[in-house]
């Protein structure tokens, strides 16, 4: 199968117009020594029906969240994705347009990004948001690049150990190129101690912490931000958009930047992507923001219009002096986020948050396991298992239940800790079923 459109007659006419007799002549500029003189060694072509059958077979070999009762979270969450998202994203104009370089051709997508930026600012309490980053991990590295330039005399980044391990790993991969050193502040009882964080931040450009944190606990986030600020470091909060109907906005407790993984708002888990990361900041950082930003202006007739703006920050103008190298971002996934958050509205978002809170509390009371930490939770609760958590998981999966994430994968001394995620897609009966299964497999 191919998606080509030329007929043989078209080809003949076109070759004649070019003045060559065959297609090979067009490639004479490719030196003979670097030409591939054989067919590509890839599997044979498939027609659409065969292709669908083949790929459906691959998909059928995966155990998805509809095939077993799943309490997996740990950064990617099974929240409800409204039907309007599929409808909006399947509009070919959104799906098949590129970055809106020509604003007159792209007012729709530009306006959508402007609305997305507004929604992110509202959720986080920040003044400015970019048009999206790759995911919740890379936006942390982007934020460190902003901090490096905003606080140029400091070469250190402080990460709370309760920050998503993959976020910390990505920051550590990027940091050497930025000339930054990374230090981590250990957790204590599931949360971060503000005094320890403040001490580590004394000579740091920025401090990153997560609310709710990776262990499911609510951090004393306002105290962490204050400790960072007092030490002269930027306070950067990594937050879950679906929590921000009930949890305070980072902008309201002194953070300089708010970042996060957008997946929970509007994107399918999709084995890790594509998703969108968001990055929002106080207005002091407007001209240091990484990535695309859309602004409002007027056209020649004075009519409101939208355009990519502040482009003198960007790689195609500033080249080696740019604030980042991003061009392609995650617009379509951010559009899904905008549609989902608009579908929920402020009331719906609060209700999702309350449902998560109440299910988490119910799980805490109902499951036959001891909570690992005392701190309050939002939608994930860590429990101690009497057998290794991985073993409990293995046995539970044999009974059709995926009970959650084994924290021993990332944290020493937590081989017996299971992190259970409760979104609004889980019910009281689902938690009861989990309780039964854990009772069986842990005894």
């Amino acid at each position, binding site marked *: 199968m191919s998606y080509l459109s*030329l007929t043989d007659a078209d080809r003949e006419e076109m070759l004649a*117009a070019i003045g060559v007799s065959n297609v090979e002549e*067009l490639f004479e*500029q490719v030196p003979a020594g*670097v030409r*591939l003189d054989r*067919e590509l060694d890839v599997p044979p072509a498939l027609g659409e029906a065969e*292709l669908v059958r083949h*790929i459906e077979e691959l998909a059928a070999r995966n155990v998805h969240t509809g095939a077993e009762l799943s309490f997996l979270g*740990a950064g990617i969450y099974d929240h409800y994705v409204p039907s*309007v998202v599929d409808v909006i994203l399947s509009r*070919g104009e959104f*799906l*098949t*347009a*590129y*970055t*809106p370089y020509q604003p*007159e*051709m792209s*007012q729709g*997508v530009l*306006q959508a990004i402007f609305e997305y930026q507004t929604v992110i600012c509202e959720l986080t309490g920040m*003044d400015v948001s970019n048009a*999206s980053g*790759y995911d*919740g991990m890379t936006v942390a590295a982007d934020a460190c690049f902003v901090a490096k330039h905003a606080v140029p005399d400091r070469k250190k980044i402080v990460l709370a150990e309760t920050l998503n391990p993959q976020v910390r790993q990505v920051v550590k*991969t990027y940091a050497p*190129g*930025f000339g930054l050193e990374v230090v981590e502040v250990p957790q204590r009882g599931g949360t971060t101690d503000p005094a320890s964080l403040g001490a580590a931040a004394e000579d740091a450009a920025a401090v990153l912490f997560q609310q709710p944190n990776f262990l499911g606990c*609510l951090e004393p*986030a306002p105290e962490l931000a204050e400790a960072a600020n007092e030490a002269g470091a930027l306070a950067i909060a990594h937050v879950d958009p679906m929590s*921000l109907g*009930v949890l305070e906005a980072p902008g309201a407790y002194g953070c300089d930047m708010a970042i996060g993984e957008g997946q929970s708002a509007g994107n399918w888990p999709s084995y*890790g*992507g594509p*998703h969108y990361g968001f990055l929002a900041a106080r207005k002091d950082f407007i001209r240091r923001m990484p990535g695309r930003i859309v*602004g409002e*202006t*007027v*056209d020649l007739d004075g*009519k409101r219009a939208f355009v990519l703006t*502040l482009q003198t920050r960007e*790689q195609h103008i500033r*080249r*080696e002096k740019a604030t980042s190298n991003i*061009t392609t*971002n995650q*617009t*379509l*996934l951010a559009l899904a986020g905008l*549609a989902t958050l608009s*579908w929920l509205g*402020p009331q*719906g978002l609060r209700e999702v948050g309350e449902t998560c809170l*109440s299910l988490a*509390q*119910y799980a805490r009371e109902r499951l036959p396991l001891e909570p690992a930490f005392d701190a*309050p939770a939002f939608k994930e609760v860590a429990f101690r298992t009497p057998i290794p958590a991985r073993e409990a998981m293995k046995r539970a999966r044999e009974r059709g239940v995926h009970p959650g994430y084994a924290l021993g994968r990332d944290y020493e001394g937590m081989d017996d800790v299971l992190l259970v995620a409760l979104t*609004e897609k889980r019910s009281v009966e689902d938690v009861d079923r989990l309780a039964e299964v854990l009772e069986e497999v842990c005894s």
Partner: protein
Amino acid sequence: MTKEHGSAWPDAPLIFERSRAGRRAGRPPRPDLPVPELPSAVRRVTPPRLPEVSEPELVRHFTTLADRTFGVDTGFYPLGSCTMKHNPRVHERLAGLPGFRDLHPHQEDEGAQGALELMWQLQSMLAEIAGLPAVTLQPAAGSQGELTGLMLMRAYFADRGEERDTIITADTAHGTNPASVTMAGYKLERVETDARGNLDLDDLRGKVNERTAGLMLTNPSTLGLFDEGIEDVAAIFHDAGALLYYDGANLNAVVGISRPGDMGFDIVHYNLHKTFSQPHGGGGPGGGPVAVRERLEPFLPVPRVVQDGDVYRLDSDHPKTIGRVRGFAGPFGVFVRSYAFMRAYGPGLREMSEVAVLNANYLLARLKDVYDLPYDRLCMHEFVLSARNLKRAHGITALDVAKRLMDYGIHPPTIYFPLVVSEALMIEPTETEPKERLDEFVEAMRKLAEEAAESPELLKEAPRVRPVRRLDEVRAAKQPVLRYHFDEHPALVG
């Protein structure tokens, strides 16, 4: 002919302007359970002012916005270097299969065998196309692939105890190349293009030395020209102990025809959203896998997809790895689409590139007598014209040409890039366009050159048929309004 002037575009209020307090669409489940009280220090005080709309208004809103957006589905989109080809719709169906869409990335490997096999097979096909043995799928986009490639160079030279601090790029390079160089902590050196559009070998020889870590090059270049001296270029770098990085933005020209590994490149990134048909989505998502030669394999990001007999698994046990550059194993939904695309073509991927090059050369042949052609050669999958002849004679710029094309229902090409060509128009038709669309473009471009002489105001005042006319971009940058300000519309605050 252009469309009628003044066609009616309905108003497009912001979604916040459609809001009415108390209106809503979604109603999440509310179990019959008490809601625990949050500590006051972390409890939200002021609710976010999200839109308050009903579902019918929500759908109409985004339908209005879609109508005001031009995609490949709408019409011809010859945006140079972006490879705006048709996006087969079967890909959307396949990426949406529950076994993919609802697969949690922390699922155990044995519960994700289909996904891992797909990734393994995709890696294998990409390796064959690049002519390099080892692939990581993790990078999220081309520019992240670039950065990953530069981090691999750093790790490689650090492991060998060599101190090299400079990366060389061409003066025609995409802006991402120098930006990535800085982010990776390298210094930048620029090499010039010669009169035929190849890298200037004399300039290059004078700049490559023991401090040089490597070259970043797009081949064919952003001029749409294959570097005829590529074997000499590779030898210059390899003789100096340096590495060559291939920016795969223009890979659509050479799939199955010439492999970057055979050209001498050690590291390659692919743009799955260009060459392998992941829809561009209004600016993303993309996918930027990276392939490397054996000696760079130990440094690839983790986790990696590996095969053990009949079983596939994610493997993070690579002590020399640069680490993780993105979450999980990469943007999996993108992999499903690109895998499907490659399986549909099979070895016929070569024909894909041949037709991309044929289409571009046809346009070039039919336009070079009315626009300046700075490098008079056959092109690859794209070419660069200059509107400087129109500017000299009639004061008409590349921007005017771009805006007038909109009136003909055509998306403009990339303009003012590459920087080495003044009034540049960078045109990439892709392989999926039929001859009729190419002919319409030729007619529009030729007509427009006549208009430049006879009625230049048609170009200066273009576009006239879009929802807005030209914008005040200076105002947007000088007085930035980057979000909706509710206080200017107090009646609408919910």
